[in-house]
């Protein structure tokens, strides 16, 4: 018998905060004390026509949240409590949910659809509630079904398809669902609400339709109906239908040939004449076709066989498709450059044009250039901007050989256009210059468009334009970013860019200081460009300049500490700026530590930097700054043993970082920094190890911590063991069971899920690295401690080796740990190695590999095993 909860549900929506809190607390208690009754009561509330719509809606929402959660662990818990619930309650709940689909209250119907889908997502994959589909279809086929019921039924079908995967349904069920949905789209029979619901349901059901698309008759029928609804008089239906076509373009690319003429006519009419959201979907259809063809081309380049067939739709449509996209470029919005990520016809058209260029390469060039040439000098800014945008869009895809002459002859024009009176034109011109540098400039390429002759002029224009409006300046930063990148790794003796670096750095620093914009993007672009400049610079020529920059950035960082902090907004701004500056420091430290001559600069300023980082950490009360942590890791490695003197001060922030579960990136980075410190300090890290190891063990046992942090923690155990050697002994009783537990867990991970596969590989690698560090650390004095664990480790290696999904890094770690085992334990492993002969084949395989590092490791391991076997 359900509990009467209407009043509590209404109270939970009260305007009075106190009443609300009490009601929420009541609901929570009820849920904890008797979940089955709670759920039953909610479903009864939702299905009762005489209850107020507000309480019914909230009942539905709470019901939904009792079945599903964003957090994976919580979701699993909720699933389990539903699965283990009394079957009679579950069937009552499901019955009332289905009843609610016929409700006269639209909110109740809609909420019920969502809950049905959540229950289905738990039960259908378990082959339960098989009658659901039949019952829903009945609603569609009963001649007297009212339109609202049909609409709700279609909506429910769509949600169910969204929640489950194609393998969860039998083909007959799929056929029935698709038949009902496609019939629901029929204009003659149904109201526009029903048809819209049907089109939206089709969108979710498309993934299930593989077999139906393989059948020509069924495919023809589906395509005919979708194309008809794409021309319906209701704009919402047209838009939903085009979204279906976009999805069909990527899922069923291989079947589209017979429909392409129709689809071109349909989409080009939409692009030219329909409302913007619909026109955007029509452009998206072609972008999706490009995505497919680019992917097919990339696959066939990577592999000799096995790529999907290529239908060359873009190539065939090219003469009509390119003009269609060029037209859209002229439909800019005023002030579109002021807003980040603006999406309109012109942006979508340019983006699609860029994809077409990547699909077809050189052949697009003669189709676009006449448009560029005829518009670029016109009086209307729209024409000049569109011409420049068209040119910039096709710079990736065609060969450098084809583009270089055009860029050479057009470069001076573009440089002059940086003085155009239209800000839009300047914005797009600066962006185009950046694209030119990105794709057509490389110190090692024969066609690079940048020469010693034109570089001075280019730099002069960029440095002048960086003072232009903020949106233009941001694009100029992007151009400088790629300009610097192109000079990386060229002739190592000298970089052509070196003479200009001083001026560029000065310009970027003052750009970062600009007060004429509240948009933080310009500042971060300026600093990030500075980072790239440092990374790509030729250290032999620029070490003193980089050292100067180091001082300037330290100075700026110390000024952030003096900022007046009144509001949380102030704090956020301070934190953002500190992040950018710590980022620059990190890049500088890493750059300077690349050579012995320059690493002394770091040592010289290490004390000052360390004080600054500690102050940055202290600015926050609860969390540790991720960027400061990254910079600190680089500093620890660069300074080596002398980092020990900072440890006492730094330790509490390190611990804070390791405890930061919510921002798991911070936790992950802190774990990495422990590794850096281990390598810097060796056994001087010993006094801090108890704290670090116990925190790491805590993290591993915590189900809340994001799983991506766990593999690095295992690797970190290896780092610690290698640093402190025999002193790791006292952690063995805690760490080894963790390693063994994780090893067992590896075999339980689903091999069907790509993410899980990758996670499994990371975990295996982490476990191996932990064992490697421990074995090598114990080698000289405590190796005997590991003898009892050798058998289990060897079995784990064997299991991993037999897994066909292991990646090369895992293989390398497995081979290495095998060698470490033989190396550290010596003759103790002789019998084991004779019993487990898998290593013979494994090493044979690795020695044939193309990966030199793997080969080298395998050779070493082979030697270690050989030594044991003949001992």
């Amino acid at each position, binding site marked *: 018998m359900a509990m009467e909860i209407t009043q509590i549900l209404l109270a939970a929506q009260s305007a009075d905060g106190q009443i609300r809190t009490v009601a929420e607390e009541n609901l929570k208690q009820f849920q904890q004390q008797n979940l089955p009754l709670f759920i039953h009561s909610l479903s009864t509330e939702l299905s009762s026509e005489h209850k107020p719509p507000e309480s019914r809606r909230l009942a539905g929402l709470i019901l939904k949240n009792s079945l599903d959660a964003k957090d994976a662990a919580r979701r699993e818990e909720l699933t389990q409590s539903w699965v283990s619930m009394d079957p009679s309650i579950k069937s009552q709940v499901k019955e009332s949910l289905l009843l609610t689909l016929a409700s006269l209250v639209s909110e109740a119907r809609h909420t019920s659809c969502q809950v049905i889908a959540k229950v289905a997502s738990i039960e259908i994959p378990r082959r339960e509630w098989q009658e659901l589909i039949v019952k829903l279809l009945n609603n569609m086929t009963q001649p007297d079904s009212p339109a609202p019921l049909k609409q709700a039924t279609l909506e429910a079908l769509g949600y169910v398809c969204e929640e489950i995967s194609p393998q969860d349904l039998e083909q007959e069920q799929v056929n029935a669902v698709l038949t009902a949905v496609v019939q629901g789209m029929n204009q003659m029979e149904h109201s526009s609400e029903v048809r819209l619901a049907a089109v939206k349901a089709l969108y979710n059901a498309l993934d299930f339709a593989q077999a139906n698309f393989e059948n020509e008759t069924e495919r023809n029928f589906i395509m005919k109906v979708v194309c008809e609804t794409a021309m319906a008089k209701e704009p919402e239906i047209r838009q939903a239908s085009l*979204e279906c076509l976009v999805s069909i373009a990527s899922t069923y690319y291989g079947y589209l040939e017979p429909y392409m003429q129709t689809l071109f006519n349909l989409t080009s009419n939409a692009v030219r004449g329909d409302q913007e959201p619909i026109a955007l979907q029509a452009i998206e259809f072609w972008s999706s076709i490009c995505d497919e063809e680019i992917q097919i081309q990339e696959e066939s380049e990577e592999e000799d066989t096995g790529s999907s067939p290529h239908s060359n739709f873009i190539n065939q449509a090219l003469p009509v498709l390119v003009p269609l996209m060029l037209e859209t470029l002229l439909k800019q919005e005023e002030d579109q450059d002021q807003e980040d990520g603006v999406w309109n016809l012109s942006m979508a058209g340019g983006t699609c044009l860029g994809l077409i260029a990547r699909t077809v390469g050189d052949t697009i060039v003669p189709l676009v250039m006449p448009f560029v040439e005829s518009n670029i000098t016109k009086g209307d800014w729209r024409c000049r901007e569109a011409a420049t945008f068209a040119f910039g869009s096709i710079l990736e895809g065609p060969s450098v050989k084809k583009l270089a002459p055009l860029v050479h002859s057009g470069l001076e024009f573009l440089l002059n256009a940086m003085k155009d009176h239209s800000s839009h034109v300047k914005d797009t011109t600066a962006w185009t210059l950046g694209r030119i540098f990105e794709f057509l400039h490389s110190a090692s390429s024969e066609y690079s468009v940048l020469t010693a002759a034109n570089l001075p002029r280019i730099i002069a224009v960029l440095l002048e334009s960086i003072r232009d409006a903020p949106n233009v300046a941001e694009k100029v930063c992007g151009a400088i970013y790629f300009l610097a990148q192109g000079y990386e790794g060229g002739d190592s003796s000298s970089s052509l860019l070196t003479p200009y670096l001083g001026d560029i750095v000065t310009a970027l620093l003052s750009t970062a200081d600009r007060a004429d914009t509240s948009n933080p993007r310009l500042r971060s672009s300026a600093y990030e460009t500075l980072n790239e400049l440092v990374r790509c610079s030729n250290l032999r020529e620029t070490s003193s300049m980089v050292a100067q920059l180091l001082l300037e950035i330290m100075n700026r960082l110390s000024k952030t500490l003096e900022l007046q902090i009144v509001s949380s907004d102030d704090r956020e701004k301070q934190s953002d700026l500190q992040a950018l500056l710590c980022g620059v420091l990190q890049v500088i430290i890493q750059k300077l530590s690349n050579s012995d001559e320059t690493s002394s600069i770091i040592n010289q300023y290490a004390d000052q930097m360390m004080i600054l980082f500690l102050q940055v950490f202290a600015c926050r009360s609860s969390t540790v700054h991720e960027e400061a942590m990254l910079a600190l890791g680089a500093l620890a490695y660069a300074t080596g043993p002398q980092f020990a003197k900072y440890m006492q001060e730094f330790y509490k922030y390190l611990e804070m970082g390791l405890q930061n579960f919510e921002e798991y990136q911070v936790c992950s980075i802190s774990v990495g920094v422990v590794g850096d410190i281990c390598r810097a300090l060796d056994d001087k890290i010993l006094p801090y190890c108890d704290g670090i190891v116990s925190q790491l063990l805590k993290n591993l046992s915590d189900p809340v911590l994001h799983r991506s942090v766990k593999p690095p923690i295992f690797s970190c155990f290896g780092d610690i063991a290698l640093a402190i050697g025999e002193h790791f002994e006292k952690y063995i009783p805690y760490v080894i069971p963790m390693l063994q537990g994780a090893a067992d867990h590896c075999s339980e991970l689903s091999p069907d899920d790509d993410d899980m596969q990758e996670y499994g590989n990371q975990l295996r690698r982490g476990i191996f690295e932990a064992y490697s560090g421990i074995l090598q650390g114990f080698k000289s004095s405590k190796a005997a401690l590991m003898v009892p664990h050798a058998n289990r480790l060897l079995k784990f290696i064997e299991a991993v080796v037999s897994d066909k999904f292991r990646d090369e890094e895992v293989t390398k770690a497995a081979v290495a740990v095998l060698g470490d085992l033989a190396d550290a334990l010596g003759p103790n492993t002789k019998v084991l190695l004779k019993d487990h002969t898998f290593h013979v084949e494994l090493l044979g395989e690795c020695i044939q590999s193309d990966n030199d590092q793997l080969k080298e490791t395998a050779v070493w391991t082979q030697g270690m095993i050989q030594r044991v076997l003949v*001992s």
Partner: protein
Amino acid sequence: MPQPEVRRSIKRSAVSDQQRRRELALLRQTQQRSDSQNRARRLASSVFTLSSSSSSDLILPDKGILTRAADSEEHEAHLDESVAPARELNVVQASKLKGREARQWFARQLMLPEWMIDIPPKLDRDWYVFARPAGNRCFVVSSNGTTISRLRNGSVLHHFPSSLPNGSRTRDSSGPASSYCVLDCIFHEPDQTYYVIDMVCWRDYSLYDCTAEFRFFWLNSKLAESGACNSPSTYHRYRFSVVPIYDCNQAGLHAAYSTSMPYTKDGLLFFNKHAHYQTGNTPLALVWKDNFCSQYFLDTDSQGLVPTQQQVVLEMQEDGKLTTSDDPPVEFGSLEVDFIQKSEFRAGNLLRFAIKDESVRVVDGKLEIGDLQFISKSNRARAFADSYSKVFFQYAARHSPLKIEDIAASILPNLPDDSPIVDVEMGS
């Protein structure tokens, strides 16, 4: 129905420098972790080569051999036994040995191919072939900032700086100062080049227990990147070069035999792909010559002339037996006791004999010599007697030489791998 993912505008930069910083930091940490683990492992592997009893290839055999080495001061042979160097030595330690100890040690380190007296099966599948450069075989060791090449008998050929790892006193950032490498080479006088025919150790990695297939791969990928193949300079006195190595199929054999090489050829070398680097004589490496591809088809005497009768160098044992350098040795005759006493020969002396053709018989594929005529003690520079296969090859060379056509014929063209030859039943 979920909102379709919004496509990223082409005008929005996809670069996230923060993500890039994270990735670069991760990359740096991974690299540094791998470096420090490798350092720990390298400590291990040097312990291994110094003290292990397993890597027998690096270790001096029984001290008995010390007395066998030909040397100018043979009287000191007894002394050698009393001051026999440690039984276990590695290349690094051995390179600290001086004078005769060093010579004796290094004389045992080369892998010596047998002469090809019959054609091994599966030549095309399991073997490599290459043209042997004319010149002296030598063992090249780079360590401690210098490079030393030693001839087959262990004596020093050159002492020079090279770009090999730790082969000169320049700052070599690519490895620790203790690093060393060992190459098996032929020094080719005309272009003053060391042609590397095998790689034994590279940057402390011992390749003794690796297959030829792998050693050649390693050789080809590592030598060039060290800069050793560059032209000579102050810190790199001699150029090193690899030789083209072919699979021993029809095309490979033809290329090795007929193509002109940058060096003068002295026969062909055949290496079994699966064989490890084994010091001393081995049937898994073979040498073959004819008049076309070698100026040294028939053995010459000390004047450099081909004698009318075949000559052999054999080692005298304690009991007067005359044996080859094989292990175990093959006996071809013995000396009378009074002859030994009169000549003051001692066990281990290498003696040169002439063979009368008519006294030679081949019984069950084995060579037997009826009559050995003493000529002289052999050249003092020699460290070893002739091997059985050499004596046999030289005998065959004078009577019915193994021809290139024979070798080529043993390699069946167009036969797919592993398919046995099946008799076809005709007319059935």
